[in-house]
């Protein structure tokens, strides 16, 4: 049975932020966009917020804006919007790859990046690609706007730095520099509409065979999606070779703390994340025979 709640549908961002401010007065107001996570939670737990705030009328948040190298994705832009955007393959290659294996069409048509980030599931597909793009989260409350690096956004399992009255209004990042390879791969228990067992995104920039920039992000192998900074450090500034990549992949896998669940054991996840990190890095560095 779906939980009970009061329903509000603000007509402007200002109105929405005023509603969010109610969170400071003991009323729990939760923003509602695609519902692909929230509806399931409310059905499973039977528990709902005091106020469910439908952000569907906030047209200003559905935009994807490209200015020069910078892209800003409004909080209501859907995964389908990303997948179908003609320039997104240049601005976020791994994110587009991810969007193509993200749930099914109907969920892609409503699910948002902001919702993925706000929910913060460790198995969330889109967070790893965004981490490799050094994405930033734009947070707004009735008083101010602040920007938090996605890399500093999560603090633990489904925990983040957001204040109770804040709303994610946009995600933004800069397009990868020329010559950067940005890749995503997800292992699931089946090919279509699968929950991620291991999700990996990498970005790699090289300068005459030397790694001049690298990001390695991994999902479903810890309490949150995270970057392996140790593995990145193995590669940064070094001449790329297969052996170096093998080492980095090992280091990355060692940073994970995966759990056992119905989909796979932690042991398998640890094994597989190393293989996938390795494979994506070799592919990015064009080191495959």
């Amino acid at each position, binding site marked *: 049975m779906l939980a009970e709640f009061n329903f509000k549908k603000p007509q402007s961002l200002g109105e929405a932020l005023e509603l969010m401010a109610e969170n400071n007065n003991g009323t729990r107001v939760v923003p509602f966009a695609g519902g692909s996570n929230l509806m399931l939670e409310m059905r499973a737990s*039977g528990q709902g917020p005091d106020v469910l705030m439908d952000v569907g009328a906030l047209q200003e948040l559905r935009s994807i804006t490209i200015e020069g190298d910078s892209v800003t994705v409004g909080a209501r832009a859907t995964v389908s919007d990303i997948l179908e955007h003609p320039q997104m393959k240049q601005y976020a290659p791994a994110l587009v790859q991810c969007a193509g294996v993200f749930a099914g069409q109907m969920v892609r048509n409503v699910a948002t990046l902001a919702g993925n980030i706000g929910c913060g599931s460790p198995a969330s597909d889109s967070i790893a690609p965004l981490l490799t793009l050094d994405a930033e989260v734009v947070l707004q409350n009735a008083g101010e706007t602040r920007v938090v690096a996605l890399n500093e956004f999560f603090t633990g399992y489904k925990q983040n730095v957001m204040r109770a009255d804040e709303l994610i209004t946009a995600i933004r990042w800069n397009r990868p520099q020329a010559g950067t390879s940005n890749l995503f791969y997800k*292992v699931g228990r089946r090919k*279509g509409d699968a929950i991620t067992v291991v999700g990996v995104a990498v970005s790699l920039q090289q300068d005459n065979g030397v790694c001049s920039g690298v990001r390695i992000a991994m999902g479903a192998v810890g309490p949150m999606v995270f970057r392996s900074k140790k593995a990145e450090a193995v590669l940064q500034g070094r001449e790329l070779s297969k052996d170096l990549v093998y080492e980095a992949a090992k280091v990355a896998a060692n940073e994970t703390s995966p759990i056992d669940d119905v989909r796979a054991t932690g042991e398998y996840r640890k094994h597989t994340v190393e293989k*996938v990190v390795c494979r994506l890095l070799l592919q990015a560095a064009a080191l495959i025979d």
Partner: protein
Amino acid sequence: MSSQLQTGSNVKHKQVGRPLVRTDAPGKAMGKTRYAGDYVMPDMLHSVVLRSPLASATLKSLDISEAQALPGVVCIITGKDLPEGMAATDIPGQTGRKRLDTDSQILVHTRVRYHGEPMALIAAETKAIAEKARSLIKYDLEPLEGVFSTEDALKPGAPQVQGKGNIIGKHQVRKGDIDMGFAAADHIVERTYNTQFIEHAFLEPEVGLAWVNEDDVINIRVSTQVIEHFRTIAEAVGVPHNKVRIMGAMVGGGFGGKEDITVEVFLALLAKSTGRPVKMVYSREDSWFGHGKRHPYKITYRTGVTNDGKVTAVKVDIVSDSGAYVYLSPYVLMYCTLASQGPYRVDNINIDAVSVSTNNMYTSAFRGFGACQAAIAYEQQMDEVANVIGMSPVEFRRKNYIKTGETTCTGWPIESAVWTEQCVDQAMQGLGEPTKPSGPHIRIGRGVAAYQQSYGRLTWLHDTSECWVGVEMDGTVVVRSGVTDIGAGQTSALGQIAAELLGVNLDQVVIYNSDSAVTPLAGTSTASRALYMTGNACKNAAMAIRERFLTRTAKEFGVAADQVDLADNKAFVIDEPEKSMSLRELIAITATEGIHRSELVQFNAPFSDPIDPETGQGRVHPDYAYGAQAIEVAVDTETGEITVLKSVAAHDVGQCINLAAVEGQIEGGTVMGLGYALSEEMIYKDGQLMTPSFSEYLIPTSMDTPQEHKSIILESRSGLGPFGSKGIGEPALTPVAPATANAVADAIGVRVMDFPLTPEKIVNALKEAEAQS
């Protein structure tokens, strides 16, 4: 995606065999078809079930007072209200004889035996109120030690669930002399294969609507494969058999999961108690608990073989988990037992099978009915043995195929054509050139599997089916039959058969089906029997009318009856087509002369006595279908992921009635089989369901289908069905999972013995193999 058809002789049909648009398709594609859940009535109540959250417990108390006080709650029924509330779940047969002690409690009295067992029924003015009331029922469940594996259940002193020592069914076969057979063998290969709990995952959860009419007849509109449960329902609620009427509707998928009673008894009780119409719509969560799963089986094969590839002896040991209640488990076990010889000649074979009760979810019918598990084991074993003697799997099979006229393991001769060899060869050829691996970590593998699968029910169940056919004054045709249409085109096929014989087009036929009060009872849509049994009844009924029409036409034109025919709405002399009249004219003549234009026919399957319980020898099934599946896979040796590249199915269907429908069965069976082998598993941990959603129970999606699929359809015209057809509903599924497992083993050089073949099991098997070498 392609299909090719090969026929054995040059029989010409006007309707039969063509890929005609099914009569049920337009309504479904336009959204006009009403399923059982799409009916509403004035004054209708909505109902829900309260289920046990524990798998093994004692119900100490159940307090409904708060729930009952909720405004809008009309009726709450608990086990206490049903002192004799037991529902028999025996196979619905036409013999009226009860065979096994298969009763299960309708609602928990005191003992909870499985997770999700119903404890109370609530009917209220709205579904929301009923759900709210359910949350207000207070109960005290005291956990009891349960038993959750067949091994534990068979241990001395194990908690008792059902039967004696938890054994609810046993079968055995003794044929030839296995000691002599093993003595003659050069190699003896022993392997154990394990299969998992599988869920039907029909898209339409169980649903029904019941009301009591002015004659005190309890009417139930329900999604079911079996309308003849009305007798069992009547006995469960204590009314005469003729006071329960079941009306089906188009069924949103069954696959065996709607073979047992689901919501019918609950609805009958609530409608009888309240005097108002009551609807019950299972949620997907209810559905996981609401019908029996496919049994996990543990099957051990010990095969004796000579160096030149002749099987000399086979010993099979079978253990199945029947879960907390008996349902159809003993019969599923029997089907598995008798299928476990496979399509191979084995002169010396002993089979011992046992079905064991546990506190897991109960298990029952599922497309393939035990034969799938048998095939998964015998076809993997054939590859393992071939590997041991260093022979190709196809060559090894070729040396051992059972041939037309030879006998099954029960000693009964097979009368219809056995085209296993053609099917295996063509399926393998259909794979074409091997695919090149797409990377250094990718390995390609190929596998094949054949089968012998019965169609029709056990011959000692004395299966019958009725059908009525009538011709209207304007030449349109009416077919009436109790057959349920579970999506495979069961009704449309009847229309095609009647149209063929009466010389009209399919769109001139209307078919009324699945109403236990007004359509002649046709038996179940199970066991790949609907076309065989009801198709024959329909054919014989149409044939009776046809013969009267031909006789009258012959008289009209002054020729012999074998010189006239009916086609294209005309009656005519075959060699002198100018001598013809319209069907309408002919009907007007028959009406004037009182010639009977309708016919009710009962078709009887071959009847036999039960097999000898000691040796298992005797007649078991009316007939068997044969075919094969070949699969090519790519295995990622690093992640363990499997991609199905190619699939070729080759089946002898006897005779296609509707080519598109046959292809549909094969394509659907293929993908269901891939799910069985690769991704599907109902996981129970200490009896608790761990996979209660479609994001955890993983049936194949559009992205999981083979990249290429081909259906090769052969027509031996040797089957017992109408026009020589055989059943294809279950055979389409049977060889797929073992062929897939054989392809995976071929790719990676080791075999995973436990289904499903998850990426993790592949990785672990490869690691183990590496450690050993």
